[in-house]
C-alpha cells in the first residue's frame, strides 16, 4: 500500500479531486487552510481572504497501480499551477 501526499493551491482542488475520482481511488482526505513555501510561491494565512486562497493537503492511501494511473494527469496540473506530490510506504492497520 502507498500513501500519496499532494500539496497545492486550494483553487485547483476541484481539478485534482476530479482526477482522483476519475481514476476511482478508494478514498482521499483533504485538509484545507494549509500555508507554506515552495520553490515558486509563498502562501500565507493572511492572503486567504484575497482571491488567492491557501493550500490544500490531500492524502490518498492506495495501491501503486492506482498512483501510476493518476500520475500523469496530476503531474500536469501541478507543473502548470505549482504544488508537490510525494509517495511513501504504508500498510493498513
Amino acid at each position, binding site marked *: 500500500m502507498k500513501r500519496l501526499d499532494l500539496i497545492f*493551491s486550494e*483553487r485547483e482542488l476541484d481539478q485534482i479531486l476530479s482526477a482522483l475520482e476519475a481514476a476511482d481511488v478508494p478514498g482521499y482526505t483533504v485538509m484545507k*487552510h494549509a500555508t507554506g513555501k515552495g520553490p515558486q*510561491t*509563498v502562501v*500565507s*494565512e*493572511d*492572503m*486567504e*481572504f*484575497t*482571491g*488567492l*486562497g*491557501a493550500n490544500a493537503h490531500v492524502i490518498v492511501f492506495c495501491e501503486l497501480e492506482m498512483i501510476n494511473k493518476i500520475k500523469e494527469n496530476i503531474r*500536469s496540473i501541478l507543473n*502548470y*499551477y*505549482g504544488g508537490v506530490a510525494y509517495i511513501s510506504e504504508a500498510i493498513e492497520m
Partner: protein
Amino acid sequence: MVSNLVLQNVLTPPVLFFFLGTIAVAVRSDLEIPAPLPKLFSLYLLLAIGFKGGIELEKSGLGGQVLPTVLAAIAMSLLIPLICFVILRLKLDVFNSAAIAAAYGSISAVTFITAESFLESQNIPFDGFMVAALAFMESPAIIVGLLLVKLFAPKNRPNSREMKWGAILHESMLNGSVYLLLGSLLIGFLTAAYNPGGVEKMQPFTGKLFYGAECFFLLDMGIVAAQRLPSLKKAGSFLIMFAILIPLFNAMIGVFVAKALLLGPGNALLFAILCASASYLAVPAAMRMTVPEARASYYISTTLGLTFPFNIVIGIPIYMGLVNKIIPSLG
C-alpha cells in the same frame, strides 16, 4: 488645504484602525485576526454595500446621471488596463503586465467605502447609484487582462491550457465577490421595490453595523497590507513607483470624466476613487486561474501593500482637493 484634508481623513476611526493594524506588524505585536474571520467581514461588507446600493438604485431609477455614469465607469475599466499595460510592458513580461493592468482597471470595494465614510465625515452628499458603477467595474477589467494575454502572449503556451471564452467570462462574472456584490445589489433593488418593510428590517444589519464592521476589517487590512511590504521590496522600484503614481494619474482622468458627466463633488470623488483603486479580490482570483505565469506576489503586493494604503490614507484627500479645484461645488 489638502494637508488639512489628509489630517481630517487620518483622524477617522477606519483609517486609525488601519494604522493600528500596520503598526502591529511594524512593532511585531502578535495581534492577528485568524482566518476565516477576515472573510466574514469581507463577505459582510460586499453584501451590505450591494444591498444598500440596490435600494438607492431603486430610489433614483436608471434615469438622470445614472446610466451615463455607469457606462463611463465601464469604459474606464476597459481603458485603464490598456494604459497600465503599455507602461508595465516597459519592464515586465506580458503575463505580469496583463495581470497587474487588470487589477488596476478593476476596483477595491473597501477603498470605495472608506471614501464614502470620508465624504460623510465632511458632510458632502453623494449618490447611492455609485455602487452600481462599482459593481460593474470589476468584470470588464478582467476580460481586458485576459484578452491582452491572448493577444500578446508568446505562442508557446501549452495548447491544452488555451484560454476559452467560456472560462474567461466565467472567471470575470462569477467570481465570488463580483457575484455577491451584484446579487446583493439586485436583492436590494427588488426588496426596495416590492417589500419596503424588508428594507427597514435589514437596516440594523446592513446599515447601522456597517461602520463598525468596516473599522474591524480595516484593522485586518492594516495587518495584511503591512505584511505585503517585504515582498514589495523584492518587486523593485519600478513597481513601487507604479503603485503610487498610477492611482494619482487614474484619479486625475477620473475627475475630468466626472466633470464631463456633470457629477457633483461627492460623486466625482467616488468616481475618481473607482479609477484610482485596484482589485485584490476578484482579479487575483481570476488571474491565478487563467494566467498562472504571472507572479501573484507582484499583483498582490502592489495593489494591497501600496496602492490600497496610499489611497485610503493620502489618496482620498488629495483627490478631494483635486475635485474641489476642478469641479465647482453646487452648494
